[in-house]
């Protein structure tokens, strides 16, 4: 099976999309990707050749000073630190949690179902529902932690 991994740009775009904040305007000026209010598609991120953006750099964005016929795909602990601790996932997980709360209120089972429909276009399996319920029951205000785990999951990053 030719499983595809989202590059950093579509991965970030997908996060903004599911959390309901993506600005889909076409064209216009570039915007700094470190700006937490930047909700534009990643395509419009500013690229500084002398000081490449860390998020892009760590996630296989090619060196902008050289030709790149194809990106090298790596999996590194640094990418995982970005996933666990970086501001992008934190912010989008919070946005996604707000959206889910708005649409599914306080019912954990409904929250989980909605999250799976938004992110994966399917219903959660029994096991996945169980894992989610247990996590949410164990953490007060745990929804943003839960949505962050989903945004950083393999299923969200890889397309079958």
């Amino acid at each position: 099976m030719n499983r595809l991994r989202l590059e950093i740009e579509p991965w970030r775009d997908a996060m903004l999309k599911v959390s309901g904040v993506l600005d889909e305007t076409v064209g216009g000026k570039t915007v700094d990707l470190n700006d937490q209010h930047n909700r534009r598609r990643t395509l419009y991120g500013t690229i500084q050749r002398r000081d490449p953006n860390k998020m892009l750099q760590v996630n296989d964005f090619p060196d902008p000073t050289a030709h790149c016929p194809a990106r090298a795909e790596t999996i590194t602990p640094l990418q995982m630190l970005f996933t666990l601790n970086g501001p992008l996932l934190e912010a989008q997980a919070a946005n996604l949690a707000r959206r889910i709360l708005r649409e599914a209120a306080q019912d954990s089972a409904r929250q989980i179902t909605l999250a799976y429909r938004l992110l994966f276009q399917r219903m959660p399996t029994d096991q996945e529902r169980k894992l989610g319920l247990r996590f949410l029951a164990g953490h007060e205000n745990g929804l943003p932690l839960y949505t962050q785990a989903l945004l950083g999951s393999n299923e969200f990053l890889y397309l079958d």
Partner: protein
Amino acid sequence: MNTEISRRALLGQMGAGLGMVGLAQALQAEGANFAPPFTPRAKRVIHLFMNGGPFGPDFLDPKPALKKYAGQRPEGADLRTERPTGGLMPSPYQYTHCGKSGLPVSELLPNLARKHADHLCVLRSVYTDNPNHGPALLLMNNGTMTPRVPSMGAWVSYGLGTENRNLPAYVVLCPGRPVRFSILWNSAFLPAKNAGMYVNHSKLDPNTMIPWLKNSRLSNRDQLDQLDLMKALNQEHLRARGDSDLRLEGRIEAMETAYRMQFSASDAFDITREPETMRERYGKSHFGNGCLLARRLVERGTRFVQLYYGDRQPWDTHRKHDETTRKLAADIDQPIATLLSDLEERGMLEDTLVIWGGEFGRTPVSEGGNGRDHNPHGFLMWMAGGGVKGGYAHGSSDEFGFKAVENPMPIHDLHATILHLLGINHELLTYRYAGRDFRLTDVSGHVAHDILA
């Protein structure tokens, strides 16, 4: 069958934690064996990469004929160069015979000469296959001119694993970026966790070196729960697909390494925790800091550290060669001498292989009057520590230092020898990919037995 799976199964049977045990032990348990019938002489490698390419006769390979034929282009000095070159340009540095061995070392390396001449194993006849930086950097790192095969560090990480599962097995340090970037330390078709972890150490705070190292908002308990959740979900995902995908597994493993790194890296990467006297011994230049950082990492179990001298290619002296080389040499001499002394004091020099060199050398003929062009025909590297003869020069270049003549050592031989020192038979460390078994040395490579201690 997929090697990673059988290895995983084996590790399960042995009850060992992943990353604690390398493939070597796992395969031995299975009956396969890529270890030669002797004890490994080196357990870890520090590769000091002089990116751009130094000129060997400036340091450890005296060439008096350069003076004799200065400005001329006698027979043997007319090899093809990348750019137009003129007559021979002497290397102006005085040599002294040093140590008990009497190894000739130039005035550019006074500390190394005084303290470690008898540790140096000089390779005077290395050669490579391409005169351009990009392909030559790849050749030195992976034995080919393309980025589609694993780097040496990745092979070593794959073969031997890490001695500390809280740190990556393979770390690449550079106070900037070499002219080719992550393709130099990639894992290609090997499991992704074997790729080098690139760290820019130009700022010393581990939180700056390693972005997003700290989580400022979650308690450790919450983060651990979140990590467990993510792992469980990813494992469900993997199970549901029923196939093996090294990328999916690699990401699960990398996530755990990252979690543990938050604690272990804050210590390992923090050279300010060293005594001030130690900081001063290394000097506080980027390169000195890099050498000290390399020592801290290998001391804690990192298997392979590659330290690129500097941003882009500082050793690429097409102009003002001598002037630049003096500065570069002054910048590396004390840190390297201290690194070797420090390893020796800790009893680690005997099983740490230190390697010094560039992606190629430079021409004995001048470029533009005071520069030197790229030279792949023959160049110099040296090793020290882990199982190599000290105070010894292997092979020789021609009378001008242009071309390898005696015991010429192609990159595959260099790689075969490094793996051998680590206890790996380069012909047996293979990985099946795209229908055949691949290895670092492809279908070539001879161990240079002469340099083994």
